[in-house]
């Protein structure tokens, strides 16, 4: 099964990476190449939307962790959105969700972002 990767701009210098299909040992390099080209220190937030991701293996997980590390290296945000049960299971086995921002839905993520935004505004007041 192929992997489809869509990258869209988000507010606050963000980018949303939407994945569909299979992120496996064969397709992981496609995602890595895209990230190498599109994500640099000018990007302050990456949202990885896994709503249509049907299959994930450790090769794919490695790319996701690398992206998280890359974002952290320039104090950017990294968020995971819409993990399907079979994808969530892989993260759970590796115990990989500790310290990750994971959101079940767009609404939940928006709430979090609004709260963060307000915190910043309060801090500046």
């Amino acid at each position: 099964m192929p992997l489809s990767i869509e990258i869209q701009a988000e507010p606050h210098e963000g980018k949303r990476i939407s994945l569909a299909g299979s992120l496996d040992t064969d397709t992981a390099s496609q995602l890595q190449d895209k990230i190498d080209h599109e994500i640099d220190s000018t990007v302050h937030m990456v949202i990885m939307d896994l709503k249509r991701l049907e299959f994930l293996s450790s090769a794919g997980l490695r790319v996701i962790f690398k992206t998280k590390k890359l974002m952290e290296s320039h104090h950017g945000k990294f968020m995971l959105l819409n993990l399907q049960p079979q994808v969530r299971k892989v993260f759970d086995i590796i115990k990989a969700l500790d310290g990750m921002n994971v959101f079940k839905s767009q609404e939940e993520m928006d709430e979090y972002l609004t709260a963060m935004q307000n915190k910043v505004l309060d801090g500046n007041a």
Partner: protein
Amino acid sequence: MATNENTQWSKQIQLSNKTSECNRLFEFLANNLQQLPVTKEFRHDLKLVSEELLANIIKHGYDRDSDEKIDIELAVDKNSVRLTFTDSARAFNPLERNDPDILNDLSEGGMGIMLVKSLTDEQSYMRDNDLNVFTVTKNYNT
């Protein structure tokens, strides 16, 4: 290939040591597992396990860009499904790997075998002459 007197039927496929072969592996599993009365989750777990084992052999066993073969057998009995991976690469026992430290070490493997251990009931490695033989068993009722 390891056969067992309880085996009801078995199927084989031979793959090359290329990551693109995981598509043929997925197809092989999908075709042969569809006749089994197992859950979608069971099928998914077996697919994931076999992908990890194939990836392990390609990455850690054979040299890059070499043209080698990997034999896979799927054997079904009334209690379980057994997958056997046989390759002629350098001796490599993935069960000897330690669990990875995810937060600090991304380049190292180990995540794959962690998934394999978690999603199957038995795992065994054997060096048989010049062959690596890795077998996993997954019971229906787990």
